[in-house]
């Protein structure tokens, strides 16, 4: 199985260890992984700010980079959702539709495509999991508390395979952290307050690590933790599953 690895622009530049963990984890699971070097970004920062009409170049580049793969895997729910919902290509719409159909967020790729049932990972810590909104309400990686429906969580299922890991429950299971792309600067006051409240929920329940599937949410919470000089750290799901 040949997989195209899609690493979000800010992960590439700020959190290379998350890209590395994703790559190594997939390789461990017997997948051939290729990282197309010409990739940049999914276009979401522009589109969510109302500039979807300017994302044409970004979109076409994405199709060119990833068209050839059987699957595309990305360690971000938010970027995956954006591709799934908004990727178009006037030159070749069929290719864009195909790409949209084969892009997977890391956790769902592991549980739904590779059908992972056990992992050789060890992470002896108390971990709170931040379920990003796009991963959850967009990609349905876990059940949403608003709905009257059976609970499930793909990332939690994976984390429970990690030896030594203690899963920390939260008071508000799926509240938004307030990152929200450009929202984090255009609505600084509300964004920061949301982030502080989210972090506080993890701290109150004794988490040593805040894990998540989206580095953008984690970067925002990490920023708050650092400012508070907290010892609690953020970790991407891939890093823990690869530990």
């Amino acid at each position, binding site marked *: 199985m040949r997989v195209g690895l899609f690493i979000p622009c800010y992960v590439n*530049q700020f959190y290379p260890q998350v890209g590395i963990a994703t790559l190594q984890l997939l390789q461990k699971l017997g997948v051939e992984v290729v990282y197309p070097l010409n990739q*940049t970004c999914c276009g979401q920062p522009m589109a969510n*700010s109302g500039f979807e009409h300017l994302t044409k*170049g970004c979109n076409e*580049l994405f199709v060119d980079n990833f068209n050839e793969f059987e699957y595309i895997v990305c360690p971000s729910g938010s970027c995956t959702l954006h591709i799934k919902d908004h990727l178009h290509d006037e030159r070749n719409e069929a290719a864009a539709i195909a790409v949209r159909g084969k892009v997977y967020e890391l956790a769902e790729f592991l549980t739904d495509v590779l059908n992972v049932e056990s992992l050789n990972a060890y992470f002896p810590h108390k971990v709170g999991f931040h379920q990003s909104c796009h991963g959850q309400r967009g990609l349905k990686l876990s059940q949403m508390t608003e709905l009257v429906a059976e609970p499930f969580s793909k990332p939690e299922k994976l984390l429970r395979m990690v030896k030594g890991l203690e899963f920390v429950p939260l008071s508000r299971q799926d509240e938004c952290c307030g990152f929200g792309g450009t929202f984090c600067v255009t609505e600084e006051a*509300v964004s920061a*307050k949301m982030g502080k*409240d989210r972090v506080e929920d993890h701290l109150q329940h004794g988490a040593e690590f805040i894990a998540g599937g989206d580095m953008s949410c984690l970067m925002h919470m990490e920023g708050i933790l650092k400012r508070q000089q907290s010892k609690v750290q953020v970790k991407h799901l891939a890093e823990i599953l690869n530990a």
Partner: protein
Amino acid sequence: MDHSQLAATFNKDESRVTWHDETLWWVRQKRDKQAHQLPEWERLRETASRIKNNVLSNLSGYLEEFEANAIKNGITVHWAADGKEHNAIVHSILQKHGVNKIVKSKSMLTEECHLNEYLHQQGVEVIDTDLGEYIVQLAKEPPSHIVLPCIHKKKEDIGELFHQYLGTPEGNADPQFLTNAARLHLREKFLTRKIAITGVNFAVAETGEFVVCTNEGNADMGAHLSDVHIACMGLEKLIPKRKHLSVFLRLLTRSATGQPITTYSSHFKKPRKNQEMHIVLVDNGRSRQLGRPDFRNSLKCIRCGACMNTCPVYRRSGGHSYHNAIAGPIGSILAPNIDMKDYADLPFASTLCGSCSNVCPVKIDIHDQLYKWRQVLVKDGHASIVKKLGMKGMTFTLSHPAVFNFAGKAGRWVLKHTPFVVNNGFNPWFKQRDMPEPPKESFAEWYKKAVSNQQ
């Protein structure tokens, strides 16, 4: 002032924001509890959504049916194209009866039309009889929430207000005591006012009747004691048949406050002997919204307020920061229809987390509409945000890998250009947050080395 500025002001008192957030979260939890008691909940939502879809697809037919039946029942029906016409119609009825003091029970439509201000200018005294509305009216503020108008006020604030206006003892903030004080005061108004205005929650086309839902019974008090009852409603309040109430009444208050049903669901069908009954049907932009395929679903709204209670941004910015009669997620998709320029900021006052769409009892795709409004507003050049973000340079770089990779060595490009870190003087990111240290090398750089080492 736009939403972000008003929200920043609201956030100056952090403990108050925490209190506001927790108060509304508690309401959301009550809603969850009620919803989870009904295994058929999701089917109810779907049914309600479809009934409303039918209404919106055949609106003119249902309106005519409703009008004909209401007239048959002895109700006078008026049509208002906008808020101005609505206010003038109401005023003309008051003038006809020579009345300049009225009672009104909660109606978001009259808020939307700014009826109180208008009547005040005409020398008419309006008393809002819903306790929450009454409180904000005393405070000379608009409601901050469509169901819980004074949710932004602590009981101490209310005690203070009542002390000032109703002469209750200073420092007494006992809710029971204050409610009673308001009740005594309002009773006198009910008994002496000849005209009562109410809103409408549902209007039944089949029968020409309308239903008003309240917890305090104040709509009934007003309507039953008055000689003239004026009911004001937006065009979208229609439902085809009376039996459809069995869907909507089950959803409304469970979603709104987590009660199984409103204390009073009062049906009004025809005037009492010697009473006059009027209905004012108001468009005020609704036909225009109906004509926008991406946004027409917003007219399904039954004004339960659940989207506000669940909204993490609303809970931490307060209703007044939306500077619109209807706040929160639903207000943010309704307001730009009324005025794109004035409300261009509202669709951006969201993280697009999607919780609103999940609680909405009529399944409005609220967060998708917020996204779509952003596209419309930017294309029309309305958003001031356009200038702030410098998107054009960003898209150029992101469409050109060579530029990106050159610019992007170890965080350089992202640090300079990504909107959340872009350094324009004082960057809001750093006010309460730190940035990660840029690493020695990017993932792409690491990968290139790793691949060449393998070969």
